[in-house]
């Protein structure tokens, strides 16, 4: 079957998380400056990367939708963005916890990634209100795709602009994620894989649920029931 099997994905995700968590708690060294709290980095940054990829994937699916007029691409775009929104909230929460632990404030403006995320989330938060404000389903899908493409292009540009605006006098709170020593790098990569698998699994679940609901509606209509 072309579509990844739900069972395989779920098992892979659970396995990856087990490995990742073991590495985080038992293998990765405790960071000198920030202490134990730094370990949230292994959750926060993979979540951020996966969320941003999710938004961009949503934009790419939207392009496919506009070019092929196939509603299935719109469904994929919707699920990707929807899931990224949820993951994005987790990014903001974990980022806030980390900032509080390292810097003493629940929010810091001097961390460009976090600030960019806030702006992006504010933008994508309008995605669902936009969809629900359009009644015609075909037009709703089309307008949502236009939005997804515009917002998807906005993600990298926003990061660029905010990073430029960050004051270089302030040391970055959350530290750079490059130049990691080997044990940390390994733990990071495994965590990244685990979060990515989680995203893929949850998206596949949601897609399957939505497809089933659509099939059910179509069948009941043919049989003459009210949907």
């Amino acid at each position, binding site marked *: 079957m072309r579509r990844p099997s739900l069972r395989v994905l779920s098992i892979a995700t659970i396995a990856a998380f087990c490995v990742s968590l073991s590495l985080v708690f038992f293998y990765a060294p405790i960071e000198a400056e920030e202490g134990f709290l730094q370990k949230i980095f292994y959750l926060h940054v993979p979540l951020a990367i996966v969320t941003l990829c999710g938004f961009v994937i949503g934009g790419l699916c939207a392009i496919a939708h506009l070019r092929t007029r196939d509603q299935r691409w719109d469904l994929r775009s919707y699920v990707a963005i929807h899931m990224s929104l949820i993951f994005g909230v987790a990014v903001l929460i974990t980022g806030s916890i980390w900032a509080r632990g390292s810097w003493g404030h629940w929010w810091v403006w001097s961390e460009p990634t976090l600030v960019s995320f806030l702006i992006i989330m504010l933008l994508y938060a309008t995605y669902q209100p936009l969809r629900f404000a359009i009644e015609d389903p*075909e037009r709703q899908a089309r307008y949502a795709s236009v939005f997804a493409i515009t917002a998807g292009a906005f993600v990298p540009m926003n990061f660029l602009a905010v990073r430029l605006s960050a004051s270089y006098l302030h040391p970055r709170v959350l530290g750079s994620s490059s130049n990691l020593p080997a044990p940390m790098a390994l733990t990071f990569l495994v965590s990244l894989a685990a979060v990515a698998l989680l995203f893929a699994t949850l998206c596949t679940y949601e897609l399957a649920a939505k497809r089933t609901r659509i099939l059910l*509606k179509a069948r009941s209509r043919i049989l003459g029931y009210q949907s």
Partner: protein
Amino acid sequence: MRDIEVQTANGRTVEDIVAAVELDGLTRNYGERAALDDVTLKLDAAQTLVVFGPNGAGKTTLLRVLATLLRPHAGKVTVLGAEFPDDAWQVRGRIGLLGHDPLLYRELTARENLRYHARLHDIDDELVERQLAAVSMTSRAEEPVRTLSRGMVQRVAVARATLHDPELLLLDEPYANLDPAAIELVEPLIGPSSGCTRVLSSHDPGRGLAESDLVLGLRAGRVALLADATGVSTNAVAELYR
């Protein structure tokens, strides 16, 4: 492609002989509901098709699909030789739509509105004046549309719809808001004597049947009646509304 027009013996051109409108299984959905479901018909050039049906039957949707404003979701639509939606852009300038909305800006005058449409169609301003004269609106042409009565607005709308001399007229209940004198006035522009191919939606069986060559009855988006006008009685039309 259209620069050379071959004239046949009785004055009709080659394009006239090709069907003006050909629908084959046209379907247009609105979500899960079908606004138009498997509509098939063929309308020859210079003929009139009248569409009857209760509200919500799909009459306006059909007209808007033919006007290139709505894409067909399934089936084949060929209008004036162009297949929709890919070639729709080729025939836009040859179609005139007169819908429920006059498509006029209320703050602009009749003349300004018509000039705007003329420029969109790359037509000279003097034709605007002739259109205004044809609908007897020259004296009121300098007043904002919002000051005009419904009947006058409809007359200006007729002028707008026929400004670019279209070959195919799509008329959605065109005689509503017009008194008998006005109807007579616009007849040369949008009536049978205009010589255009016409698709006309109507709630008036008597008038509709008298003006048409082909009759289409729609119910819930489906074809309930399709016949030559000569074989259809007003009773048959009334059946559609039951």
